[in-house]
């Protein structure tokens, strides 16, 4: 027995296993430093006074006794609820039309409805000003007095969140089983009953998921409320005001914690729903072949046409306004508004900074996230570490950008922090953005890794081929589509994000999206719109480039797929 026991204590040195575990450990450390530590610092700040003394919940007490601040919670909830109801309804009908009807022009609708994904959330808000502002071309159509307030916020958010909701619902609806509908037809079930008993239950998880995604995006968004909120305060703008307007970092931390709560709650519920979702569609499910029903198709087409028109109107208005010399008194077209060097916000430098940042986020982010997802998926040892990793990888989804940005100030600007040197550099913006958009990339990577045969590593080991060779020769090529998706997702989001980085840019690292905010703040609405339009076209350009590249690359490296 003692010989056996001794044998247990003496594992043979295994370099590969050591490297894998060390990398995994580094990965967890990376996420702790990039996410958990800053968030903890922020929590700590919320229970301290200006001088850094512990004062318990006094800040919170102050918050809840200040009606102006407290009111923002209600405002945020109102905005989030309205946005969710409108977006989910519209997206549901559109998704239904795109997956279940014989409507014509589906491809075009899908293309148009994805456009907002490439725009910063500031763009619809700026566009609203030109559409429904006091000098707006459609001012008369507005049922309320002023676009500056909840109506404007909700409209802007609807534009921006719609494609997110649509994507989830399209996926959910494509996964249904045609045999259920055939069975219903055989039983002569009326259409409304089919809808209630088959269609709706079939997509219920997708629907719940959509609701929470919409709610979270709406309650945490900063850009729209900042530009068009007027005096209507929401939590995200409160954080900004507390921090940049009043230097009240402690109160900023308090609002952050409060904003974190609904986000974490909806995140938690969504995860639970996700867990129960497994295998609702059997492998033998038959895909639905939509039939054409002229009346229904035409109605749906009318609806989708309306949606598409709204999306194009918003984008078109921003583009048009950016080319007007002096709205509304001099409508001649000019490129004056693109002379960013004469405006606040860092000028053209900020645009190139954004490009650089997005480039580095895409490169380092794809590498780090994919590698860590790989290790998390393939390393069999250290279950506790992998669980921690999984949790940390999911967490960023629940952390609003404003909160993450503020946390970074607290954490990285402390002189006691050896990482302090990062403060004010491009590196901190890259790190912050990478962490901010971590979760979706991690899920994409994990999903594609899970689809790969789990025995590849075992086979390689038996053939005495080191894991990194198999990673390079097999795993990476197999996951190439996912890797490309991740990189372009990171690039586009890094270009358009504003909430987290608004606290972190410095003189050398002004960003285009922040410049939009700054120009709008300074009253330069048209140049702000110009920059937003520029950002959108850059993101679209990158996406098209990605599409071409991946088509080319996949055609060459993925011959086996079509073999």
């Amino acid at each position, binding site marked *: 027995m003692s010989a056996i026991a001794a044998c247990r204590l003496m594992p043979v040195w295994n370099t590969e296993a050591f490297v894998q575990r060390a990398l995994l450990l580094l990965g967890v450390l990376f996420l702790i430093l990039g996410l958990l530590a800053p968030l903890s610092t922020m929590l700590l700040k919320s229970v301290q006074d200006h001088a850094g003394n512990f004062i318990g919940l006094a800040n919170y007490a102050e918050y809840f006794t*200040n*009606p*102006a601040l407290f*009111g*923002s919670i209600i*405002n945020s909830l109102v905005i989030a609820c309205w946005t969710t109801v409108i977006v989910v309804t519209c997206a549901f009908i559109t998704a239904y039309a795109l997956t279940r009807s014989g409507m014509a022009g589906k491809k075009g609708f899908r293309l148009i409805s994805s456009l907002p994904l490439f725009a910063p959330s500031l763009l619809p808000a700026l566009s609203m*000003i030109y559409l429904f*502002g*006091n*000098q707006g071309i459609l001012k008369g159509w507005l049922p309320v*007095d*002023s676009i*500056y*307030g909840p109506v404007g916020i909700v409209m802007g958010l609807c534009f921006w969140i719609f494609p997110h909701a649509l994507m989830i619902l399209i996926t959910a609806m494509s996964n249904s089983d045609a045999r259920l509908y055939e069975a219903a037809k055989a039983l002569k079930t009326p259409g409304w009953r089919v809808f209630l008993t088959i269609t709706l239950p079939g997509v219920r998880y997708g629907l719940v998921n959509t609701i929470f995604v919409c709610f979270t995006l709406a309650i945490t968004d900063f850009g729209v409320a900042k530009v068009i909120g*007027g*005096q*209507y*305060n929401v939590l995200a703008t409160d954080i900004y*005001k507390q*921090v*940049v*307007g*009043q*230097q009240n*970092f402690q109160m900023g931390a308090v609002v952050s914690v409060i904003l974190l709560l609904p986000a974490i709650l909806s995140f938690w519920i969504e995860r639970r729903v996700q867990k129960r979702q497994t295998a609702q569609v059997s492998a033998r499910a038959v895909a639905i072949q939509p039939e054409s029903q002229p009346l229904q198709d035409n109605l749906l087409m009318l609806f989708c046409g309306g949606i598409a028109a709204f999306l194009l109107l918003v984008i078109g208005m921003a583009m048009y306004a950016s080319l007007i010399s*002096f*709205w*509304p*008194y*001099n409508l001649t077209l000019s490129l004056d508004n693109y002379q960013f*060097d*004469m*405006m*606040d*916000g*860092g*000028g*053209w*430098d900020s645009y*190139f*900074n954004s490009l*650089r940042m997005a480039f580095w986020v895409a490169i380092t982010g794809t590498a780090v996230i994919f590698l860590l997802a790989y290790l998390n998926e393939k390393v069999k040892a250290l279950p506790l570490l992998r669980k921690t990793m999984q949790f940390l990888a999911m967490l960023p989804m629940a952390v609003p950008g404003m909160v993450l940005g503020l946390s970074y*100030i607290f954490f990285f*600007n*402390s*002189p006691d922090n050896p990482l*302090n040197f990062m*403060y*004010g550099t*491009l590196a901190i913006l890259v790190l912050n953005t990478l962490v901010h958009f971590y979760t979706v990339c991690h899920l994409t990577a994990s999903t594609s890794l899970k689809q790969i045969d789990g025995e590849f590593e075992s086979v390689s080991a038996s053939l005495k081929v080191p894991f990194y060779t198999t990673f390079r020769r097999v795993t990476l090529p197999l996951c190439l589509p996912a890797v490309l998706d991740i990189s372009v997702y990171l690039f586009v989001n890094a270009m358009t994000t504003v909430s987290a980085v608004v606290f972190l840019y*410095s*003189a*050398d690292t002004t960003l285009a999206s922040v410049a939009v905010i*700054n120009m709008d*703040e*300074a*009253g*330069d*609405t048209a140049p702000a719109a110009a920059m937003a339009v520029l950002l959108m076209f850059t993101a679209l350009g990158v996406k098209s480039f990605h599409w071409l590249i991946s088509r080319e690359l996949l055609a060459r490296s993925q011959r086996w797929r079509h073999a």
Partner: protein
Amino acid sequence: MKLMAKARVLAAALGMGAALQAQAQTDLTVYTALEADQLKSYATAFEKNNPDVKIRWVRDSTGIITARLLAEKENPQADVVLGLAATSLLVLKDQGMLQGYKPAGVEKLSKKFVDADATPSWVGMDAWVASICYNTVEAEKLNLPKPASWQDLTRPEYKGHVIMPNPNSSGTGFLDVSSWLQSFGEEQGWAFMDKLHTNVDRYTHSGSKPCKLAAAGETAIGISFAYRGAKLVTKGAPIEVIFPSEGLGWDMEAAAIVKGTDKLQAAKTLMDWTVTRPANELYNESYAVVAMPGVAKPIKNYPTDIAERMIDNDFQWSAVNRSRILKEWQQRYDSKSEPKK
């Protein structure tokens, strides 16, 4: 400046950082709340005479720059603050964040533009004054008479047509509030703002924005400052800059060295420049009142008697009461969604 920036982008793109550039010159990080369109000429003028110092501007509105400086108190990023409201610099001075320095030639400046200490912590540059931007086209459409005084703005016909900066973030906003409190007295001042509040459509983040919104017809009346109004008039906006009869609130733009800078020598060079005559002449392109007596010439779209219209501003009082005033203001007005008082 632009070339520099391009070179930086290039260098950084190549090697991720400009550290390897030959460093014959000192990069001076200067935090400022000057208007974006002023930065270039200031830097050019300074660097022409001091080629070994390069200015890196960090530009934001008064509130944000003040917030940043306070946030970075433990670990200052700025070497110099230039063109920031004196009330903000007084707050920084109270926090012990400023490095005293007596620039060569400071004695030529008017006394009220220089910190009273033997070694001044800050030196004033110019004064900017509150004013009203009034869109004549929109006012005519809406049938709004031209206001002549601050008190006029509280009249019911202006309801929903007035926009002013939020004092929490905007230096202009703060000087408005502090000047009203000083010239009307605290009680009267708050009463005035209560009434004004019912007419205000919204409070903006920056001091320029109300005037720009007035220029764009988004509002008829924007409470802003004279320089911005004058600029927009020149640009062709249908606005008129109104100087209310009760007197004009004003604040000083001032400069100071941030304590703890490792580029003290270059910082001093810049401070020395700020008190020179050419610098004051430059200020005069935007502002009618500058620190060096006898320099100011009348400027386009500005009234000539502006200095006489300025109220007797007590900066010390403003600085000491800054956080109290802001807090009170926020309690009263910061949410338009609250029932109006």
